[in-house]
């Protein structure tokens, strides 16, 4: 870049051959792109939900209206049967696919070598390691991993691109994360909600967060996305919801606005 700017400054007449035989051309190749979209995960006492829109964008273009972002990990390649962990990836889609495939292989190898399925907590730690291994050329994605923990409670882990992770009740990621996350803070963790009439000013008692029932959570997810679609151009087309319970994994699609 700098060399081009220098050249521009020295330019007097537009001869194409006289100048700058010295100076090495810099790498102009940027290996990342942003494919937009948004994801979101919420847990309950006996379930976990991961959801994402199915739009793929590059700039102002819509590449496709049907590119799912939530994947079953460790199951059959085509049907996903036998999986007990789900992963959502949003950001640079090519890195997302590569990351998904690596984690899927790891979980399968674990099962072949140990004769038992990988626990969600073990998988969560492994995913962090995979991401951190590429600390200086990161997978440009925000990942969310979900499943059921050893007690059968919903487990959800969220990651940054270089592998920092944390278990949470809910998390929004991707293009519309800044629109969805405050809504979730309020509706799932009851932030800024107080018990009416419990006191005046600082004496007001905050509403205690508690696990929500599945139907309520499904409603929150759909509301979060229909609202995000209104205000973010990279979000839309279809909503993919993957629900994991002790009965197995259920996957449903709902239409979103396509504008």
């Amino acid at each position: 870049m700098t060399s081009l700017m220098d050249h521009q400054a020295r330019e007097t007449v537009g001869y194409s051959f006289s100048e700058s035989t010295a100076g090495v051309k810099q790498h102009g190749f940027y290996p990342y792109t942003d494919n937009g979209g948004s994801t979101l995960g919420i847990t309950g006492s006996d379930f976990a939900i991961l959801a994402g829109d199915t739009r793929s964008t590059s700039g102002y273009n819509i590449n496709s209206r049907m590119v799912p972002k939530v994947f079953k990990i460790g199951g059959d390649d085509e049907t996903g049967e036998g999986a007990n962990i789900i992963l959502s990836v949003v950001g640079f889609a090519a890195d997302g696919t590569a990351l998904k495939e690596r984690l899927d292989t790891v979980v399968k190898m674990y099962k072949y070598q140990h004769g038992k399925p990988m626990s969600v907590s073990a998988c969560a730690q492994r995913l962090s390691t995979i991401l951190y291994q590429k600390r200086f050329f990161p997978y440009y994605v925000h990942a969310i991993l979900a499943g059921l923990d050893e007690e059968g409670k919903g487990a959800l882990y969220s990651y940054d691109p270089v592998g920092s992770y944390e278990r949470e009740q809910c998390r929004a990621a991707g293009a519309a994360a800044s629109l969805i996350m405050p809504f979730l803070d309020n509706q799932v963790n009851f932030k800024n909600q107080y018990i009416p009439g419990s006191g005046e000013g600082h004496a007001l008692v905050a509403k205690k967060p508690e696990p929500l029932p599945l139907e309520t959570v499904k409603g929150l997810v759909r509301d979060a996305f229909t609202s995000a679609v209104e205000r973010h151009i990279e979000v839309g087309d279809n909503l993919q919801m993957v629900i994991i319970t002790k009965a197995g994994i259920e996957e449903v699609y709902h239409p979103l606005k396509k504008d």
Partner: protein
Amino acid sequence: MDHFPGTWGRPRNDVYGAYDPSYLQSTGPKTHTTSPAVTGTSVVGVKFNGGVALATDNLASYGSLARFTDTKRLRVFGDQAVVGFGGDVSDMQYLDRLLESIDIRENYSSHGNMLNAKNLHTYLAKVFYKRRSEFNPLWNHVLVAGFDGEGKPFLSSADLLGTTFSAPHLATGFGAHLAVPILRRLFPEEKPIEEISREEAVDALKQCLKVLFYRDARSLDKYSIAVITKEGIDLKEDEQLEGQSWAFAERIKGYGAQTV
């Protein structure tokens, strides 16, 4: 016209920007492709009942120079898949050699070439992703057309970053701006591909190529079109765009030196 004969006959700096002299660099360290040289423009593709149609024009440009006007940018793989290449032509030829060697190796195996378009697309996407991860990209955006493992029509895209996506109709480059809206209007999402005939699909592609020829300055009215069905691949590589109407051109005024 100015008073410097050295600039006469060159693209104007104030319009096109200064010439980038680094293209003429003959010394220095080993470099990777950091920008494409000879390029092909859009590829357009659409699925229809029982197959897929794919089209490109036959131009390979060197910057703004229309360098080669008979470039075949649709490459056949096996007997059920076609790849349409946009972007760098030398990288296309490299990939074509790569695919050719796979095809030959598969055909020598006991089971024959059983790789379908979906397998081919997965492979190409991985090649692109590997090369971008080495900071040595293959500067292409391709569409792969054919059939998937279940025998259903398959159309998918892969680019130099390894990004992949699939849709009932796709276009690369300028086509993503000009052809996709035409295709989305002709074949709306609620219309299943089973209701699209081969003729409709081919006509739509011709219409797209015509609009691209009108407005994409790096395009040509000679084109190639491939129709992939269960019966085989019907590839035509020396077609001429018909029914052009340049009536609209008369109304376009006010560009360049023209002032009236």
